[in-house]
């Protein structure tokens, strides 16, 4: 793939917490329009990697480039303005706000009117702006099929719905790159299918590049264009799903034994859209 279509480039990242080396010399790049998955056993450094990209952690060594910008030292909110959005592994909704308000927070960096100009609602374009934002938020709500709960308090919803609202909030940022940390954890098969469909639509229709961490191998292998495998903070493989499946190092990382094939259940792809 040619260099100019690269959206995100991670170069030789190392991150340590005291003596614990969470990431060691990890490099990879994500092309525009890709669905890129990061997999690996528990504690492999997947979420640490995502946190480095979103800016929650700053790696001690290495650099991260987004488009043409070096973003390694930027704050999370600055990265958000450049077009990086994310969801969290353990739900991080504003549970006391309505679903609508939660999503509106996602529009924060796109809103121009402030407290004072907003007061002159009809004269400063605040009205037009608000209507435009409402329209876009409604579009997202429509797309993720959460219309029926838009006025509900976020904290009272079921787990699957909260996951969906969190995705809606990240989508509201209008990011070019969306980072999803285990979007399907704790979901039943039907909810997983829905979520898989949303991710594909986000990628194909909304034009978002997706970087995703997921444990469900079926989902990962079906959705991803490319997959990176981490183990003990090191990258052990990158490639297309079928290459990854056949990679002996990956099998070893997951099963601990070199000659064991992945069990049928783990590679099962049935029922995933």
């Amino acid at each position, binding site marked *: 793939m040619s260099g100019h279509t690269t959206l995100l480039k991670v170069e030789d990242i190392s991150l340590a917490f005291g003596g614990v080396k969470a990431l060691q010399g990890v490099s990879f790049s994500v092309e525009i329009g890709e669905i890129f998955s990061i997999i690996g056993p528990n504690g492999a450094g997947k979420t640490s990697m995502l946190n480095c990209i979103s800016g929650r952690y700053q790696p001690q060594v290495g650099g991260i480039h987004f488009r043409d910008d070096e973003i390694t030292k930027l704050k999370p*909110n600055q990265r*958000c303005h450049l077009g990086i959005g*994310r969801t969290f592994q353990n739900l991080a909704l*504003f*549970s006391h706000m309505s679903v609508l308000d939660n999503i509106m927070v996602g529009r924060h960096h796109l809103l121009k009117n402030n*407290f004072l100009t907003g007061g002159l609602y009809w004269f400063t374009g605040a009205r037009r702006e608000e209507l435009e934002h409402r329209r876009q938020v409604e579009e997202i709500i429509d797309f993720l099929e959460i219309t029926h709960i838009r006025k509900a308090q976020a904290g009272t919803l079921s787990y699957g719905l909260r996951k969906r609202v969190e995705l809606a909030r990240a989508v509201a940022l209008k990011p070019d790159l969306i980072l999803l940390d285990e979007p399907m954890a704790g979901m039943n098969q039907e909810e997983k299918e829905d979520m898989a469909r949303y991710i594909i639509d986000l990628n194909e229709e909304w034009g978002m590049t997706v970087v995703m961490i997921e444990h469900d191998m079926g989902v990962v292998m079906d959705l991803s264009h490319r997959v990176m495998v981490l183990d003990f903070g090191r990258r052990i493989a990158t490639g297309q799903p079928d290459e990854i499946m056949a990679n002996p190092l990956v099998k070893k990382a997951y099963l601990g034994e070199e000659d064991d094939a992945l069990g049928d259940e783990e590679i099962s792809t049935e029922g995933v859209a």
Partner: protein
Amino acid sequence: MNTELLMQLVVNGLIVGSLYGVVAMCFVLIYKSTRVVNFAQGEFLLIGAWTCWWLLVKFELPFWFGFPLTLAFMVIFGIALQVIVLRPMIGEPIISVIMITIGLSFFFQALMGLLFGHETKTYPQVFETASVNVLGMQVQTAYILSMVVSVLIMIAFYYFFKYSKAGLAMRATAFDQQVAQSLGISVKSVFAASWAISAVVSALAGIVIGMVNGVSSALSFFGIKVFPAVILGGLDSIVGAVVGGLIIGVLENVAEFADSQWLHIGNLYVIAPFYALVIILMIKPYGLFGTKDIERI
């Protein structure tokens, strides 16, 4: 029973209560966005009142000029306080930050004493008539002004949190700073803004009280009085702060009345608000309007 005195006291209670409400809102503003319980809230009143007094008396500025100048100073003061003292504490345990506000409270208390002395000083005459007659009752002009200003501030606060972009950002930041940041909100600016707003509005209240009672370190006692008001209303509710302030204001004055007419204890008005506080918290532990924790197990 002396009905006229009771009426007068109730009206006084409402006016003082609305000032409690305003200061309580400032307190809630900081709590809502930063989770810090600000023990130096009363000192904001003190600093504002002294600054305005200093400008009016030492420089003989007219009120219409000295007053906005004080408010402008308080904006800078609020931001500076956040940037210099509190910003390095972002990410540290909240309890440490609260301890710092206690330290700040003592520090400013002492600094004001050093700069302006410890006796009560009075403001120059600001209004032509010191008090006006409302429905047969004498009410200080400054109190009328304070009532109007308080109501305006309350409406502005409500609007701010409910509908403005910054208000939404503050609510989001209060819930989770990391998440707010990942959604493009600058936590530092939100914090600076909330301290600045809180300092300005508190100073406003301080000036009004100073105009009526004179300025002295006793003003910072307001910061303590605000506690029952805030906890009564629910720590994180703007409406609760206002209602709590009014209740405490009226309760104080009615207790004073009951005390002077029948009970003769001597200082019932000081402790009455705290009795009410204990009783209400026994019935509603989150306060009247506080947010309950939502739990799905």
